């Protein structure tokens, strides 16, 4: 087992310098998710306007994998249409299942591919992405 497969430099950079950490006043949806088995928490805010994710911020507590994943996700999703954001989330699921998927739009995410070899940590990586899916669902629901 190679630890460096899990803790790549890109991941540690996102963990130590988390992008989009914080809150804004005018978010359109807020999603709070816990990982009840380990105590990781995320509160994700999205600003969705006209079907486009204008901005994303998060606060939370968690390990290097869950927090770096949140940092990357919020970077990647900004400026995407709702459909593109959903596609991003489903590609991330495929990545966690060990599939060979690419993120040409935000390559940092590919650094998380090593998580697949650490089954106990997959739920850490997916927490932020589950929050994203839920946030988009809520936004869609609000506009019906």
């Amino acid at each position, binding site marked *: 087992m190679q630890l460096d497969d899990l803790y790549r430099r890109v991941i540690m950079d996102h963990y130590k310098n988390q992008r989009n950490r914080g809150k804004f006043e005018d978010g359109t949806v807020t999603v709070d998710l816990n990982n009840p088995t380990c105590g990781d928490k995320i509160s994700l805010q999205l600003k969705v306007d006209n079907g486009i994710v204008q901005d994303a911020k998060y606060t939370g507590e968690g390990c*290097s994998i869950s927090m770096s994943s949140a940092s990357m996700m919020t970077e990647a999703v900004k400026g995407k249409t709702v459909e593109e954001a959903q596609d991003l989330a489903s590609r991330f699921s495929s990545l966690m299942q060990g599939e060979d998927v690419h993120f040409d739009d935000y390559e940092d995410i590919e650094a998380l591919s090593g998580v697949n070899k650490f089954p106990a940590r997959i739920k850490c990586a997916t927490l932020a992405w589950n929050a994203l899916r839920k946030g988009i669902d809520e936004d869609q629901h609000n506009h019906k």
Partner: protein
Amino acid sequence: MNNAIREQFPILKQEINGHPLVYLDSAATSQKPLAVIEALRHYYEYDNANVHRGVHTLGSRATDAYEGAREKVAKFIHAKSTKEIIFTRGTTTALNMVASSYARSVLKEGDEIVLTPMEHHSNLIPWQQVAKATGAVLKYVKLQEDGSVTLSEVEKVVSDKTKIISMAYVSNVMGVINPVKEVAALAHRHGAIMVVDGAQSTPHMKVDMQDLDCDFYALSGHKMCGPTGIGVLYGKKELLESMEPVEFGGEMIDDVGLYDSTWKELPWKFEGGTPIIAGAVGLGAAIDFLESIGMDAIEAHEHELATYAVSRLSEIEGLKLYGPRERKVGLVTFNLGDVHPHDVATVLDASGIAIRAGHHCCQPLMRWLEASSTARASFYLYNTKEDVDRLISALIQTKEYFG
């Protein structure tokens, strides 16, 4: 403790990620000695049958093995009789039985249940549910700075409204031993009953129901070298007799009519359905194994390891240790600076060291400790000082890795 004991645990002889396994998660579940594995195998190879009904030879053998295990448990915890030993799935089931059968029938609106904030979720949520159903009120004992419970703090929340006090004998997070004997006496002075969560005490020290004089005591087999899926509810006979069964069906009945039925006597009225026969046999073998080593010897060994671990952990700069520094039970909970416990556990696992990371089923206690989660290393009779040394050097490496 010596190598002969380690030899009894085949699982410890393997490599994990290229390193000899160091298993430091016995508070979650202990490993199983050959004697237990062989007892299960022997039972299934030679004696397996359903209990209490077969006229045939195997039926008698299975019944003898199952009831023999009950006798071992009764002697091990010094119950007055086997009638006071109910086999359950584990501590969780045992505590839920007390809450849903005893507590629901006796509690009235305004009655009080006294707990501590260090309780495992299994000694917390059943009481929350009972309180909601009956209008009883939960009261919490204030913990000391170091996380321990003192009798004087318990006295402050106990009154004549108190009907039940429930408390862990040993905390699964801080390794503190609570004064349950003294609290039981206090409970009785106020006409309350005392429930003890014995999941973390029974594997590690002598427990004596006559000395503690508690009313109910719950334990899990898998934390004391036995199989998973078997545990025990001990209860004083007169209380168990007054209680309604929790599960109804086969095995637990005396006479069944179309509209009404009666129950078997103790302990069987609480054991509806085919019981956990092999699990009980395995628990009996685990008790024999522990007694062959001696609970005093196990306790002394753990005390030594815990003391050594606390002193070595204190050498690591930035490491925060939770709970009192002086401890008898082999369990240490800590955080390594800003490194998240998950990351600590993953890096340790890469060195073959198994520890627990998370909230340890104690979310209220985590809030009290102001930690979202912690790392925990727990020791048992098969652990050595070398295991502690491996833990320490791996922690130092982890710190450097994330530094």
